[in-house]
């Protein structure tokens, strides 16, 4: 039980996928203009990332390993993620049209989120079992959403600040992301996983 807690703390704070491992930066910079969209993106990514880490674990251990095809893992994970995203989109559209409208364009965008592929590959590299893989994926997604939502709230405030003209827009956003990363370095050494 302690070990599972440590995995969650590690992925959410200490080894945060965005601010410490620098994965999933494209949606982090691209969809964080507004708090509303950031929350939608965070929710969708959490769902897909958890599901994708389960599916990729199953595919790797019950399909690729028995047939000795481990070298195909990158391409098969990309397939798995695309399928999961497509399936999620269809399922949500059927089950809850309202949620589908809220998430909208963000669902297909998740396919290109490198954090999703990164989690699937890291799960194998770290020899995680099924439960650990689920928690690792879920923690990574929660960390991603947390940082993304906080960043979006900050950016809304920065857009009305009197930023010098060469630094307006993406430039100051990137500087802010760097400073957030500096703040997250405070967690160094908290958990050694």
């Amino acid at each position: 039980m302690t070990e599972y807690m440590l995995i969650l703390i590690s992925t959410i704070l200490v080894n945060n996928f965005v601010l410490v491992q620098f994965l999933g930066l494209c949606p982090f910079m691209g969809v964080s203009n507004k708090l509303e969209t950031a929350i939608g993106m965070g929710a969708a990514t959490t769902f897909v990332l958890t599901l994708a880490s389960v599916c990729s674990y199953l595919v790797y251990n019950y399909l690729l390993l028995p047939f000795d095809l481990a070298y195909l893992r990158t391409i098969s994970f990309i397939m798995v993620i695309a399928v999961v995203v497509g399936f999620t989109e269809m399922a949500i559209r059927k089950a809850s049209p309202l949620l589908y409208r809220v998430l909208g364009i963000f669902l297909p965008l998740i396919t290109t989120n490198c954090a999703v592929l990164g989690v699937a590959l890291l799960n194998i590299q770290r020899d995680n079992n099924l439960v650990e893989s689920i928690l690792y994926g879920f923690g990574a997604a929660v960390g991603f959403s947390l940082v993304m939502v906080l960043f979006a709230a900050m950016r809304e405030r920065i857009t009305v600040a009197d930023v010098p003209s060469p630094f307006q827009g993406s430039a100051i956003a990137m500087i802010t992301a760097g400073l957030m990363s500096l703040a997250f370095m405070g967690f160094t050494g908290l958990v050694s996983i």
Partner: protein
Amino acid sequence: MGLLTLSSPHTHNQNSTQHMMQMVILATLPGFVVSTWLFGFGTLINITLAIVVALGCEAAILVVRKRPVGFFLNDYSIVLTAVLLGLALPPLAPWWITVIATFFAVVFGKHLYGGLGNNPFNPAMLGYALVLVSFPVEMTTNWASSIIATDVTASFSDTLSIIFAGASSDAWTGATALDSYKHLITNATAAEIAQQPEFSGFLNAGWAWVNLAYLVGGLWLVWRRIISWHIPLSMLVALSLCSLIIGWDADMYTPLSLHLLSGATMLGAFFIATDPVSASTTTRGKLIYGAGIGVFVYVIRTWGAYPDAVAFAVLLMNLAVPFIDAYTQPRTYGHNKAKRGLYQKQPK
């Protein structure tokens, strides 16, 4: 002619940015005097250097941005940043640490966001965190030794040569109390550590006096209504609760007295966390913000790799402030419900 008609409210206080900043600088005086008295002139030199660099950087940026230099330099906000940074840095740190930290604080912390009132992070703590992460050795070994009993502090000329000429400072420096206690407690009981001169008596320790002096200055600020009580109180309460609940076993964790009265606890609670720009602005937001800092201070001090945690805790809560503010908006007059978070901006 005194016939000018002004509309209400007819207030008569001198509430200006300049006045507030001067009051806060004044309130750091007790802590500054006690730490200079006990630990030598290092802090004085750090502060002087930081103020010179900060004023220089700010003036240069204002000239480049074609803003009125005198007006902005005169609001004392950058002097306060420099003073806090000078107080926070190790007293015997080499001069370039102070210069780098101040430059980063003024340029990246403050002016890239548009100057006073716009910076999302506390500039002084950004500068401190940058040098702590970049130069961990210089930042952890240059603290003045914290035993009063030895009664030796480096003379003014010795301090100058340590800071500017890189002379060896080993005779006067040691790890901070928090740091050494954390290492001692891993293989000794609390009773054994209490035998050591550094931890033997409560009033024997320099750090406790410095923190009490900052507490006095901070309470004066609360009394003068320069800062509100919400942030310091919730931070200290959260830190104490964590220490009492998680650290109940005295033989395994640092005691509450050391958490409250060593390191930068009081300086952080009353002077750094209460920065009116980067802290939360709503009443409930302030309580959450302060409590978050207290919890992070405890967590990073206890399990983290860095000896003290106030800088990181403040920065971590700074980045949550816009979100906290959005979700703790008070109900406005004439509305049944408060408009919070996503519902804030939606037109009715």
